[in-house]
């Protein structure tokens, strides 16, 4: 979930009201936000850079507020305050308008070259005219771009935003993709020109930018936008040019978003212009730009689309378990920035979805907004009338019936991880990993999560190793799932429910483990004997066990597992120093 940090006093000033921390927390709760942390610049500096550095910042209270991941319109103070003021019915939701350039001037144009298809095919653009930045709003403008980049833009991989001082450049603009050695410009905050090749080198050590290089690094062509005079505006998604940099005194802003996902690019552009057109001379207006596609067609951006959805009042009441009239429901929705009107004598509502609410994609999103404005906690709780006869999952039922019996036989239950290292299921058990049908993990962060376990034994032996200070004997068991590759399932893998037990003491206690096997078979109503409904053990060779001290368990006519005295090398590889007898069987045979 994204978090925005806002200065409390400025926030209250914009809200036109002060709150106690509890009151504000309550408001957030009701609206679906979370007041995550109350801090200050100094407290943050102290936390990040050490207490001695604190004091260099301000002591003004900062609220860190958690925003739902789909509400891009709340990622800056402008949008958040707008949302809350509309919710508290202190203002009407603004109407965002596209106003074409005044007579005599033409719309800004940007042409997409076909070569961009190979790397980043989409581009959208717009202009904010006659904007006035203050230090605070300038900072918010930069912050919002950063928040969008981190969230909806998926760290610039889907969409990258470039904003420019329009008065330093001259349209029409071209969005092209060129070989890196053919791109040369002075990047933001640098004093000399670099080729794109040099830039990739320069930024490979930049703590901020190095994370984005991989998006284009191996492509034969890099995206680049330049103006009529070949001035480079940006090399998306890495860096803008120094030339068109916006400053506090910038009056006209040219915004371009390049993307691999056109839908998201449109949402990003809509979000930026709806949020910051607040500071334009003509508030909440945007000057559109014309984007010429590779097939020659022209599309005017931003979308700034108002969509209308008709919903049934009775249906919404039914879905929420409330009973309110159409007008009341319409005013609840209006408080959520979804301007609504009752139609057809109150049977239905017509709901207007503004360009700021890209999260509303279905009538069910409208239902939720009715519920939020009505107040979740004002809805009467009822018990569903659904009557069902419950069934246990047979494998879990068997497991939960056996567990207390094994404990009653004197064994203590372990609970170990289902992921482990390759060595745990192979080398440490004196087995070759290539002979084991284990599922392997592609991206483990540590060696402990290389494979899904194929046996419970290694986890139990690790448990013994961590509890060597406990009095002997240690008698442990676990009944849980292991995973094998299996071509017959859709994922190519299958869980198997295993039962493992060990006896760790000054003597191996093979007879004790064998006794537990006999007791288990008694519990499962499988009598001893060599018939197809019986069980027996027979000598076997298994590298995990000491030669001559290992047997297979044959039950119901097939091999279900193994028991024996662990090989001394296995004991050593798990850092143990006492003899140990163990068994591991597959329980699914006994369902």
């Amino acid at each position: 979930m994204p978090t925005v940090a806002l200065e409390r006093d400025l926030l209250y000033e914009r809200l036109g009201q002060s709150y106690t921390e509890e009151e504000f927390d309550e408001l957030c709760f009701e609206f679906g936000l979370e007041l995550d942390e109350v801090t200050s610049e100094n407290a943050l500096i102290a936390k990040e850079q050490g207490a001695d550095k604190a004091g260099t910042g301000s002591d003004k209270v900062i609220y860190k507020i958690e925003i739902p991941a789909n509400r891009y319109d709340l990622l800056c103070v402008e949008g958040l305050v707008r949302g809350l003021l509309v919710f508290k019915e202190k203002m009407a939701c603004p109407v965002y308008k596209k106003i074409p350039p005044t007579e005599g001037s033409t719309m800004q144009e940007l042409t997409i070259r076909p070569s961009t298809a190979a790397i980043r095919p989409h581009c959208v653009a717009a202009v904010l005219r006659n904007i006035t930045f203050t230090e605070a709003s300038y900072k918010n403008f930069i912050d919002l771009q950063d928040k969008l980049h981190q969230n909806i833009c998926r760290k610039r991989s889907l969409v990258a935003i470039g904003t420019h001082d329009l008065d330093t450049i001259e349209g029409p603009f071209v969005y092209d993709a060129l070989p890196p050695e053919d791109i040369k410009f002075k990047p933001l905050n640098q004093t000399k020109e670099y080729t794109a090749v040099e830039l990739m080198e320069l930024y490979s050590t930049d703590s901020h930018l190095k994370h984005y290089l991989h998006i284009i690094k191996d492509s034969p062509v890099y995206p680049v936008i330049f103006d009529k005079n070949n001035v480079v505006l940006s090399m998306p998604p890495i860096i803008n040019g120094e030339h068109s940099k916006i400053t506090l005194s910038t009056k006209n802003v040219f915004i371009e978003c390049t993307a691999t996902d056109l839908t998201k690019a449109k949402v990003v552009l809509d979000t930026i212009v709806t949020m910051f057109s607040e500071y334009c001379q003509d508030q909440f207006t945007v000057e559109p730009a014309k984007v010429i596609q590779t097939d020659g067609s022209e599309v005017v951006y931003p979308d700034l689309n108002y969509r209308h959805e008709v919903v049934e009042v009775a249906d919404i009441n039914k879905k929420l378990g409330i009973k309110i009239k159409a007008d009341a429901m319409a005013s609840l929705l209006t408080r959520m920035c979804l301007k609504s009107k009752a139609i057809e004598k109150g049977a239905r509502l017509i709901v207007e979805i503004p360009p700021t609410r890209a999260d509303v994609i279905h009538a069910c999103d409208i239902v939720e907004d009715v519920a939020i404005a009505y107040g979740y906690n004002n809805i009467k709780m009822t018990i569903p009338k659904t009557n069902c006869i419950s069934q246990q999952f047979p494998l879990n039922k068997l497991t939960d019936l056996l567990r207390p019996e094994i404990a009653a036989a004197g064994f203590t239950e372990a609970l170990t991880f289902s992921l482990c290292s390759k060595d745990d299921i192979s080398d440490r058990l004196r087995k070759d990993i290539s002979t084991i049908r284990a599922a392997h993990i592609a991206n483990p962060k540590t060696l402990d999560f290389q494979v899904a376990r194929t046996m419970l034994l290694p986890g139990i032996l690790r448990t013994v190793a961590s509890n060597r200070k406990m009095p002997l004997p240690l008698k442990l068991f676990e009944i849980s799932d292991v995973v094998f590759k299996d071509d017959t399932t859709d994922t190519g893998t299958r869980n198997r429910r295993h039962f493992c037990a060990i006896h760790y003491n000054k003597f191996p206690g093979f007879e004790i483990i064998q006794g537990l096997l006999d007791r288990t078979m008694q519990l499962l109503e499988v009598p001893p004997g060599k018939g197809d409904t019986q069980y027996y053990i027979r000598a076997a060779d298994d590298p995990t066990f000491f030669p001559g001290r290992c047997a297979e368990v044959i039950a119901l006519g097939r091999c279900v597992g193994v028991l024996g005295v662990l090989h001394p090398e296995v004991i050593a590889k798990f850092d143990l120093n006492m003899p140990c007898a163990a068994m591991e069987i597959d329980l699914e045979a006994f369902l």
Partner: protein
Amino acid sequence: MEDTTREILERVEKLGKIDTLELAAELNVDHQKIVGAVKSIQSAGDIINCEQCTSKKWELTEEGKAVVENGSHEALVFNAVPVEGIAQADLMQSVPNAKIGFSKAMSGGWIMIDKKAEGGPRVFRKVESIEDLVQQSLIKLQNLQLDGITDQQKTDYKKRKLIQEVKINSFIVTKGRNFSLTISKQETDLTPEMLSSGSWKEHTFKPYNFEALGVLPDSGHLHPLLKIRAEYRQIFLEMGFSEMPTNNFIESSFWNFDALFQPQQHPARDAHDTFFISDPMYADETKLPADYVAKVKKVHSEGGYGSQGYRYDWKLEEGKKNILRTHTTAVSARMLYKLAQQEKFTPVKYFSIDRVFRNETLDATHLAEFHQIEGLVADYGLTLGDLMGVIKEFFKKLGIQKLRFKPAYNPYTEPSMEIFGYHPGLKKWVEIGNSGVFRPEMLLPMGLPDNVQVIAWGLSLERPTMIKYGIDNIRDLIGPKVNLQMVYNNPICRLDRH
């Protein structure tokens, strides 16, 4: 021993009261021997009463005893000086502790030194004879005759480490409730022989010490987290929920994400959050239901069922990627799809409690795998009020009475609610779970009737368990580092009791 015992009992009988210390002096036996006899009488029942008292006494050190034997260091030095005098160097060699003795004899005015004598300093007697007061005083102290010895002297001898003060525990012994002059031997416990011969009637028995703890039985123990799992399972069964088969840790991205209308660019599908499988890397697409896959593709990329969709290029390649499931809701999706394939829809209530996996950075409260608890109801016309009501009943069984709900975002539910419970111990609202109504974009492509609603909620098994047992580090609870003593000591699980 028996003599001493009889002596003690007879004296108590005669005098009513004795002091062990006095008795030891009188009988001239070691005090410890008397105390031993008293203890043994005491253990035989209420024959005597003992009152412990502590006294201090002066005792000679080894050095002090040597003085009693041979005379003080200064006297020894004096005696070593012949009338004609002796070279100081020779004198110092002639007796032990000569250095102390010399300085004491000097300051006592017993001897003198001629530093200018020929052949080095020479020592002479200054007086003809001496009286060794130190030795005399120590002899008195040894015999406990303290009269005539000043405190100043005691302090001085103590400083010279000739005497030391010791504490003595002694007893004042009086008659007990069952006082008698003879002690019959007490039996420790009943034996089969006593029962068959009837001799138990004649014996007295050693009293039990009811202050001590008993001997714990040899037993096995269930794991605390799994005891709680069993309890949650029981609650769902009491509420009429059936258990879903969650025994498939590895899941395709299709069932884990795509079927739940979670877009393919969603951050949860990032390698930083999810474990991907390298072998077998992909699910077998021929085993995925083709017509359903086509519907999922459409709802993501174009919308439908009243939805705008996410309008991006949905790729089966991405859906085929195998992962360790990130939630058990993947199984719920499979079950709901299966339900939709029935000829006629029947309402269901499902639950599961099983492991899920996140490729997270590990800390004291986060592991790469944990247990998710999930419940869902699918029926015609379910309401948000029904969801809140069923959640309330569920948490009531866990002893949590006060709940409230916060709007939240979840890609596959709408409305979505975080569940907060009031924790009377912590005196605050704590997030205890998540819930919501499954989106039509998830349910309708499966083929469920469009007036069927599915309401669901979920929580983790570990978090409430850690709070219940006051465990700060999750590794103490799960995995190989579990503290077995904690497992041995863990009580039965009663979730509704606080």
